[in-house]
């Protein structure tokens, strides 16, 4: 595979159990810096579960056991790193837009504030910068201090992305970020993702094959907890090497 890029995540023999149920089976692969990696597969295939392990959100669920290693910049995230620190470097955007019931400004300022930034001028700057990066500044600049719950679903999702950007993470995990949105909002988020990969590494879970092929550099296909195939997006969608991948991307099941 391509070796000119830096490796961001290195996952080795990852197994995950919910109680007795094995949700991930021996997953190994690498995620590269400044790329968009798409995770696809039918629902229940383990793609979202896998995404959560990358910033240890699975810690918050009971009865989860995990074996294997996940390295971020050659550091084991489960052994050498603190979950709080990890989540600041590897942040997550969820399927349902989930702004806090606070003003637009306070939503974006949340991350910097919990990191000890208190100066108004500095916060203002971070908020504006993050909102601009998330391509929503123009739409909300006049209502920064009104409740974020008054925004449309698409705007809320971009606000959530801005909220994540304000933390200056290295990696952004997106869990089906457009599945609750209309087509126009979806386009905006996709454009945004393509723009953001210049500075960030993005891992996106999607059930939408077109979306994966449109925006991602590499795609991983999950099925029943197995990683069936992982390749550059172009290759995987044009010449899949596994029969099941072909069946899935051509829409024969899933």
């Amino acid at each position: 595979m391509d070796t000119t890029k830096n490796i961001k995540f290195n996952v080795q023999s990852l197994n995950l159990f919910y109680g007795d149920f094995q949700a991930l089976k021996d997953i190994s692969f690498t995620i590269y810096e400044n790329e968009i990696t798409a995770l696809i597969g039918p629902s229940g295939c383990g793609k979202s579960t896998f995404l959560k392990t990358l910033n240890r959100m699975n810690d918050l669920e009971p009865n989860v056991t995990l074996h294997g290693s996940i390295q971020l910049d050659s550091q084991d995230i489960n052994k050498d790193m603190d979950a709080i620190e990890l989540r600041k470097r590897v942040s997550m955007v969820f399927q349902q837009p989930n702004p806090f019931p606070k003003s637009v400004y306070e939503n974006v300022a949340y991350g910097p504030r919990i990191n000890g930034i208190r100066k108004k001028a500095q916060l203002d700057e971070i908020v504006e910068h993050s909102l601009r990066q998330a391509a929503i500044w123009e739409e909300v600049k006049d209502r920064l201090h009104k409740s974020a719950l008054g925004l449309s679903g698409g705007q809320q999702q971009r606000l959530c992305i801005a909220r994540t950007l304000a933390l200056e993470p290295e990696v952004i995990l997106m869990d089906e970020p457009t599945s609750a949105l209309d087509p126009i909002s979806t386009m905006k988020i996709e454009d945004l993702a393509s723009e953001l990969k210049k500075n960030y590494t993005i891992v996106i879970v999607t059930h939408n094959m077109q979306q994966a092929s449109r925006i991602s550099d590499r795609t991983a296909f999950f099925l029943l907890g197995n990683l069936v195939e992982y390749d550059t997006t172009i290759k995987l969608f044009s010449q899949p090497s596994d029969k099941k991948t072909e069946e899935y991307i051509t829409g024969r099941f899933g």
Partner: protein
Amino acid sequence: MASQKINTLSSSKNSTFQKIKNEYFWRTIIIACGLFIILLTLGIGFFLVVKGTGTFIRMHHTVWEFLFSSDWSPFDSTTESGGGVGAAIYIFGSISTCTLALLFVTPFSLASAVLMTEITPNAGVKLFQPAIEIFVGIPSVVYGWIGLTVLVPFIKQLFHPKMGGYSVLAASIVLAVMIFPTITTVSADAIRSVSSEYRKAAYGMGSTRWQVLYKVVIPAAAPGILTGVILGLARAFGEALAVAMVIGKTRAFPADILSPTNNLTAAIASDMGNSANGGEQNLALWTMALLLFIISVFFIFLIHIISGKEKKKHA
């Protein structure tokens, strides 16, 4: 039986008629019961207003005097009038004990609500919830009795106040214990109903649990918590016998929290039975009851305003 078989048509007609009559009968009873609740509430309000305004209408005192004067020397007879009906001491006694109780208990209630919902939800359901339910049920006289036999001597021993342990402090502590379950349960419900999406988002950004609670969950639950605090305050305001047993029933403004004083409910409880019906003192006590009624209705409106605002925000 036989005649029914022969004349099926008329019997079915008859039973339909019976059915409708039956239906109509029960419908009337049910609606009457619904109306009865409204009439009862209005009736209570009406009687209290009629009795409670006697001080102002029949005895020609001013509302101002009743609320802000501390000269309480009403005549206890139906023929004389012209004494003082200033209830300021009682009103101040109610306000000061309730405010103190609230100050004491709110931090503890909040902390317990957080513990039983966010930190150990399992123990919360199995241990805290049943324990709290039981303590809602403990009769207020029992709280008062414990206050009288344990707390009052304890305060006396600890601080040696001049008038013994009967004090604003004792009343506030008894009230605080009594309203602890109310504030805790309502706050816990409010915290529980905060969308887990908010928590997910905050944890996903690397917040610690305290940060999630302090910056996201508690602000989101604030209206519900406030409702709990108001309900607690309402209960404290209306509590009579438990307070009466420990407050010292002294008609004077308290010099400090270790001094005894009196409050609205204790005054009504101890003096109403001894006052001549329709006399000046009797009517002034009714005015106090009216004041309590107004306060409790006011609290209900306050809660409605808060929940109304909340609904608007989310619409």
